[in-house]
């Protein structure tokens, strides 16, 4: 069982940071929807409040790490230009996808959308954290502000889902591979 360093980075970026953000999103949406509704009479204690503050902060950090690793570590490997005359395009995912009409759309639509739409996520969730950090339980007194934050979080969930879906499909059709090989475990061979 082996993995290359580029493969490992892609795994950490998508399955680690990105997937964790998607998982966390539903929890934050439910908590903000349920506990901070204007007509909810149940008291919010400081522990609940602190939990959501740390939760949203963690989501913002995750979102930033995801887009920064994607844009500045993995994307350069993805869009690398092969030397003239290269026949085997395995190490050049963008060129590999564009070399076939059947897979070209994964780049021209999938990656082109993913690389931009993903950046809406950290902007939205950072705003959500900042608003909650300032207003906390007082958000119940500002239903329209709460509605705006919830809407941004739902769009960020959608944007992260789009980026995640295309990331997975791109990696399926043209995986980002290369660099050193890391031996994970010795398996049985027949």
């Amino acid at each position, binding site marked *: 069982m082996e993995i290359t360093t580029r493969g490992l980075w892609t795994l950490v970026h998508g399955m680690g940071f990105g997937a964790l953000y998607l998982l966390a999103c539903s929890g934050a949406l439910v908590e903000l929807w349920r506990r901070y509704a204007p007509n909810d009479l149940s008291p919010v204690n400081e522990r609940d409040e602190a939990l959501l503050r740390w939760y949203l902060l963690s989501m913002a950090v995750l979102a930033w790490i995801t*887009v920064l690793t994607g*844009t*500045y570590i993995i994307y350069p490997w993805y*869009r690398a230009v092969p030397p003239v005359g290269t026949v085997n395009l395995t190490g050049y995912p963008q060129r590999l996808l564009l070399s076939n009409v059947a897979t070209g759309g994964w780049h021209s*639509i999938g990656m082109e959308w993913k690389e931009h739409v993903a950046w809406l996520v950290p902007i939205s969730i950072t*705003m959500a954290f900042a608003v909650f950090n*300032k207003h906390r339980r007082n958000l119940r007194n500002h239903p329209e*502000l709460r509605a705006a934050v919830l809407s941004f979080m739902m*769009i960020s969930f959608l944007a992260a889902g789009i980026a995640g879906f295309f990331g997975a499909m791109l990696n399926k059709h043209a995986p980002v591979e290369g660099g050193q090989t890391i031996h994970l475990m010795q398996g049985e061979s027949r």
Partner: protein
Amino acid sequence: MSSQSASTPKPAAQAMTNGSGAAAVLAAGVGSFSLAVLAIASDKLPAIKSLMNFYRPTGPLSGVTTTAVFVWLMLWIVLRWRWRDRNLAMGRVGRVALVLLVLSLLLTFPPIADLF
């Protein structure tokens, strides 16, 4: 003196204004929209594409995202400073910001971006 103090009603706790929240929401909407506009501009205009090439291995995406984040943060700081003690029509601010965010989502979709 003590009886006078006791009879003086305490001032009502000042309600928190929504200005800083409105600033954060609107700045996020405008920042997202600027990202979509810059992405289209760098795709269609070679001069902008070249200008946005902040970091060669990442290409124009580096400039598009860095500039959009800069626009977002600067606008946030300015609006927060101007609106910090104000109560705004949050419904309207929220709707404008949300429309900008949805437009950003749509405008970054290549078949729509290619219409320009």
